[in-house]
């Protein structure tokens, strides 16, 4: 039996480490896109300078060293261009659980299946390498594409945190989804 030497390669993308020199400038640009930041979480969006992004990378890598986060950049295989990131955080090792998150920064890079490939690689890592039992993910109710994306990967809706967000005067639910190792099929 061979080892799976391609566990971080999809057909068009691969998972890779951070490149401080190339990536910080691109990520700084993404932090100026409030629509993107609103999909990434509940915290107020805040534009970050290139230097601030680099500082955030340093903190992220410290957390990776402690194994409280697994973070990967997503790069196109053809030209190595950074298009996004995937990560597992909120890891509870004694219970084999974690929470996954994905971001594709540029709207033009969405809808090509890059995110699906990246998430399949991440799920393979989570279930076959880290031996997690349950993974969670969350999405805001005003993001039906995000919800469809997670449902297609096999996640099921577990919780509706009612009216947990206030956006432009509207109260929105946060939908929490979950995927068990036993439910995950590697197709």
């Amino acid at each position, binding site marked *: 039996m061979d080892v799976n030497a391609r566990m971080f390669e999809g057909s068009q993308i691969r998972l890779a480490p951070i490149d401080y020199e190339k990536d910080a400038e691109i990520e700084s640009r993404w932090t100026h896109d409030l629509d993107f930041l609103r999909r990434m979480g*509940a915290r107020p969006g805040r534009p970050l300078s290139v230097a601030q992004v680099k500082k955030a990378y340093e903190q992220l890598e410290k957390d990776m060293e402690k194994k409280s986060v697994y973070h990967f950049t997503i790069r196109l295989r053809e030209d190595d261009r950074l298009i996004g990131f995937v990560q597992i955080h909120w890891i509870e090792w*004694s219970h084999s659980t974690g929470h996954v998150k994905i971001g594709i920064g540029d709207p033009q890079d969405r809808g090509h299946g890059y995110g699906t490939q990246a998430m399949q690689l991440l799920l393979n890592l989570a279930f076959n390498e880290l031996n997690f039992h349950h993974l969670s993910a969350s999405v805001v109710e005003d993001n039906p594409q995000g919800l469809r994306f997670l449902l297609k990967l096999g996640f099921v809706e*577990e*919780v*509706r945190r009612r009216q947990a967000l206030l956006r432009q005067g509207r109260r929105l639910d946060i939908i929490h989804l979950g995927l068990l190792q036993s439910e995950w099929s590697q197709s």
Partner: protein
Amino acid sequence: MNGQHLQGKLVRLCSPADAESMGKAWSRWSQDMDYYRSLDSDPPRFFSAKFIKDEEEKNQEKVDTGSFFFTVRTVQEDRLIGFTALWEISWPHGEAFVSIGIGEPEYRGRGYGTEAMQLTLEYAFEELNLWRVSLFVFESNLRGIRSYEKCGFVREGVIRQAMRRDGRRWDWYLMGVLRPEWQALQAAQPET
């Protein structure tokens, strides 16, 4: 309004006690697995009263608007019996998570915790002006679930098999209460 917002019939919400008393109480309570395993999914570790006292001294120096911590004391004997905390407060969205622990076993199952939670919700909705309060509870914590339901919390979903303990998997529930729901409950059960 009765002018005693942090006080009920059985308990009142207070500031942290001095670090030494907190260290002693916390260290003793944490050895009670009925308490600890209802409160935390982290595998138990025992810390000395001294270690907790030192940590508490550091905590009490910080002013942190991301969380609010209260000790729970009995009205009658002014005895320290537990704590409540609002944490992970999201100011833009008006949400907080709440935790509660009644460390002294003889005060469990007698309404002390429920009243402490009600006072904490009153503080969250009327002082902090939050919109919703959330909590996680383990499916094994039936006493907690009953108490939270009395306070107006609704089960919003099940995080399946989120915890492994004693050779099996346990679900977590996420519960939440919205300000209008809490207000309706207050109107239906006027404080006497």
